[in-house]
């Protein structure tokens, strides 16, 4: 039985697609057959982050409209045999999605995959609701900043009232908080909300804290999910998050600001 994980946030630009790519890749690296679906119909991004934009022939909406079958639309990752992506359509909008259509595709994917990652579009409208409707778990991506935290709270409310699990009174969607763009130095300086602040406001378990890192931008531009960069702090933090998703207990890293070395202090470097 496949597990459906939605990556959502409410607010845009907090790192949903980066996270979907990293977590999906991480699960595949651990040997789990995983597919990442881009629900952001009209604003195709996932294929860029995954570095397979030139291989997109058919997309999610084509499969939905039965213009192509699932195997034609799925793109196999070049780095890992367990990893597939289902790209969004660039030329359509979110109205092209129907609940029955989405369910049919998810059911078909569930036959062959262990994990289905739904990369949600920003906002709380139809597209986002469609992405979270069938979810078993949700990774709520949040930046340590008040508006992002409030939007996450909003989307948590929707998860608990408008998902299939909520509507059928089944066991509620399992929620995980993933904090991205975390900068311990700025937290120390009082410019940014701390992990504790965000956890206190949202009151859901923390699955990962991704430090603000140059590696993330570089990875996006190169089309290589940051988790493949095992030397980067962000890559390692995502890898820890995957472990926690799989039920392992891992200590949190990168929460403290780096102590300035003697030389750096002497030279007055930032």
């Amino acid at each position, binding site marked *: 039985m496949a597990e459906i994980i939605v990556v959502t946030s409410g607010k845009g630009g907090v790192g949903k697609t980066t996270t979907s790519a990293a977590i999906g890749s991480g699960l595949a690296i651990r040997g789990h057959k995983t597919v990442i679906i881009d629900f952001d119909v009209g604003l195709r991004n996932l294929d860029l982050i995954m570095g397979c934009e030139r291989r997109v022939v058919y997309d999610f909406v084509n499969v939905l409209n039965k213009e192509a079958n699932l195997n034609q639309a799925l793109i196999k990752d070049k780095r890992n045999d367990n990893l597939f992506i289902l790209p969004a359509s660039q030329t359509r909008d979110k109205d092209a999605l129907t609940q029955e259509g989405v369910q049919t595709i998810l059911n078909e994917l569930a036959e062959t995959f262990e994990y289905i990652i739904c990369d949600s579009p920003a906002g*709380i409208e139809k597209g986002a609701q469609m992405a979270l409707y069938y979810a078993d778990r949700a990774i709520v991506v949040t930046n340590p900043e008040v508006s992002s935290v409030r939007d996450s*709270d909003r989307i*948590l*409310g929707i998860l*608990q009232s408008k998902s299939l699990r909520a509507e059928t009174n089944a066991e*509620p969607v399992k929620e995980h908080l993933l904090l991205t763009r975390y900068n311990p130095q700025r937290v120390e300086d009082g410019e940014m909300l701390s992990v504790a602040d965000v956890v206190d*406001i949202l*009151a859901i378990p923390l699955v990962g804290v991704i430090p603000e890192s140059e590696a993330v931008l570089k990875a996006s531009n190169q089309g290589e999910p940051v988790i493949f960069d095992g030397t980067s702090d962000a890559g390692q933090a995502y890898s820890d998050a995957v472990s926690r998703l799989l039920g392992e207990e891992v200590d949190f890293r990168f929460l403290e600001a780096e102590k300035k070395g003697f030389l750096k202090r002497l030279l007055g470097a930032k």
Partner: protein
Amino acid sequence: MSESCFQLKGSVVTTFILELYQYSRENFTQQLKIKIQQAPEFFHQSPVVISLEKFESDAGDIDFSELVGLCRQFELQPMAFKSVDERFVSAIKSTGLAVLSDAASRATAKDVEIEPGVAVETVVAEKIISSTSKIITRPVRSGQQVYAEGSDLIILAQVSEGAEVLADGNIHIYGNLRGRALAGVKGDAGARVFCKNMEAELISIAGNFMLSDALRKLVWKQAAQVYLDEQTLHVEAV
């Protein structure tokens, strides 16, 4: 098919009473506007009975059709007048609204004639209206609204910023209260709000409200209760 077109039934309808003390177009408009802005959703299309019981007898005449018009302008639904002085009756009747006699709103026994010698066995079918409290176990998130109609509301989790919880009775929150809590929304001035950690955006009891700015100065980030005494909200640590 039944032949009867209708059936007459007794019923009790909950309404607001607008107790009029004095009337001038400007003051009335301004004050009503302020009151309604405090809770626009709450007052929207609410039925209202205008009571003249406390209307100062030397306060002059009232333009009733203007008064009714103003109420409607603010999306209230004036239904009737009560406790009307005789000098106003014809003016009110011209507005088309009902004049409720005081007798109708008071239960009196004067119409009941008991024939002597006849044993009257009154069987009172006591109707127990049990309004069990509404219990919420999961967090109430931003954008969500929970209303306990005719009962207390008990929340065993947090109420987030941007969330709203309402009850006709008391509200108990065994978590952080960061959103809005409105107790006694149908006018029960005895209702209270209790919370384990007060960080509310707004607290209201029977329409009397207080914002976080004021709450911060009184009781903040600790267990608290809020109640109404003589039209004044009291906030206390518990």
